[in-house]
């Protein structure tokens, strides 16, 4: 027997019993008998697992713009619908279930810009515009004071345009396009301390 999401609702015999049984055994004892499969009226979107380098296909079921389920993509040639424990846990990045089985946003997700002032013992919430402006000022201040324009190499003046005073770590968690822009921006700043988790 070869069952997958693609054979959804193809088994006519099985669906006959649905009216009497669906909802039975589900988390809520009060589930309506006519409640459809919880992913039935959702939009399926394809994403790539965010963890290891296998690059498994993951389908996110989305209702009203909100993820309600995430599991393996049966059409994906590498994982063919399968996943490991991390791959199966994507939903938790957004939502966790409370003891009653109700979803609530993951309480640890960062949802606001945070700032810690020198010597402070806590973070304060800030808005994007303020943060981007302030960070840009810090970068500029450091760069303007520390950029080495030229260096004498073998008796010759060489343009080097570098600073050793800023470090930049990109990420294997981010997309190709993001890392490309990271590279552009870091080099424009003259940063030579560039690395990411490939080395760690």
């Amino acid at each position, binding site marked *: *027997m070869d*069952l*997958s*999401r693609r*054979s*959804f*609702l*193809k*088994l006519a015999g*099985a*669906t*006959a*019993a*649905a009216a009497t*049984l*669906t*909802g*039975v*055994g*589900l*988390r*809520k*004892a*009060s*589930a309506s008998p006519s409640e459809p*499969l*919880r992913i*039935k009226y959702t939009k399926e979107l394809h994403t790539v697992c965010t963890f290891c380098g296998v690059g498994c296909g993951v389908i996110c079921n989305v209702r009203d713009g909100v993820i309600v*389920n*995430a*599991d*393996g993509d*049966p059409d994906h040639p590498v*994982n063919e*619908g*399968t*996943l*490991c*424990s*991390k*791959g*199966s*846990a994507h*939903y938790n990045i957004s939502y*966790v*279930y*409370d*003891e*009653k*089985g109700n*979803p609530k946003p993951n309480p640890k997700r960062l949802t606001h810009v945070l700032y810690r002032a020198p010597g402070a013992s806590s973070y304060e919430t800030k808005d994007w515009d303020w943060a981007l402006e302030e960070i840009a000022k810090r970068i500029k201040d450091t760069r303007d004071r520390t950029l080495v324009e030229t260096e004498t190499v073998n008796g010759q003046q060489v343009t080097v345009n570098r600073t050793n005073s800023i470090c930049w770590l990109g990420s294997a968690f981010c997309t190709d396009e993001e890392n490309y822009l990271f590279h552009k921006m870091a080099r424009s700043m003259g940063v030579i301390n560039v690395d990411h988790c490939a080395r760690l």
Partner: protein
Amino acid sequence: MAQSICLIDTDKCMGCRGCQVACKQWNQLPAEQTVFDGSYENPKRFSADTYLRVAFREHDGNDGRVNWYMAKLGCMHCTDAACMQACPAGAIFRSDEGTVNIDEVKCIGCNYCVTACPFQVIGFDRLTNKARKCTFCIDRLENGLQPACAQVCPTGSITFGDRRELIAKAMNRVDQLKAAGKAGANIYGIDEVDGTAMLYVLADNPEKYGLPADPQVPVQTRIWNAIFKPLRLLVVVAVAFGLWANRSQTREIEQGKSSEK
């Protein structure tokens, strides 16, 4: 007896626990607070929030080698199901798919199934006073999907399919394992409790995976079932009343407990 079953080939299990998390994910179950006590195995027992666990067991093998056995554990969906026999409310039933399920509307929270289960896989939810366990993803089955644990399993340690085909496959695998030097290879779940809908290929004795060697419906459950079955309605009312009284008491105790924290 279920026509579609799962075959759990423990020799192919690498302990990734995709099934353990996928079960929680699909069934919308919260995580439990656990502690590390020296074994990878967590949670340690089944509960209303844990239908599936992966066993991790270390044993000495031949030539000073170690065997690290891993296996998906959960409700076996027995043919001779102790829980069904124990349930006074008729809340546990066999579905058209052959799976054993609890109707939580009918469940009166008596806990009899929990104690009767020879595999100790039924959990009890103190918030709702209902028994809960693996549903064999009956909602998925009815909609042409395989159980979440079977779909997610990367190595084919858990496969879902026709009972006869999978028994043949299991026998074939046991032969292969024996040929590869695993003399103790065996099938578990053909005869046990008249056959289970979770069939295992084991490389060694069932106990080494945390499975009972000879699972039985408890004698008292059989007696209970034989004598009281005709009087079920009466029993339900009586038990329900008893529980209602008992529950108020439990609540007070639990409130006391939480205030201790």
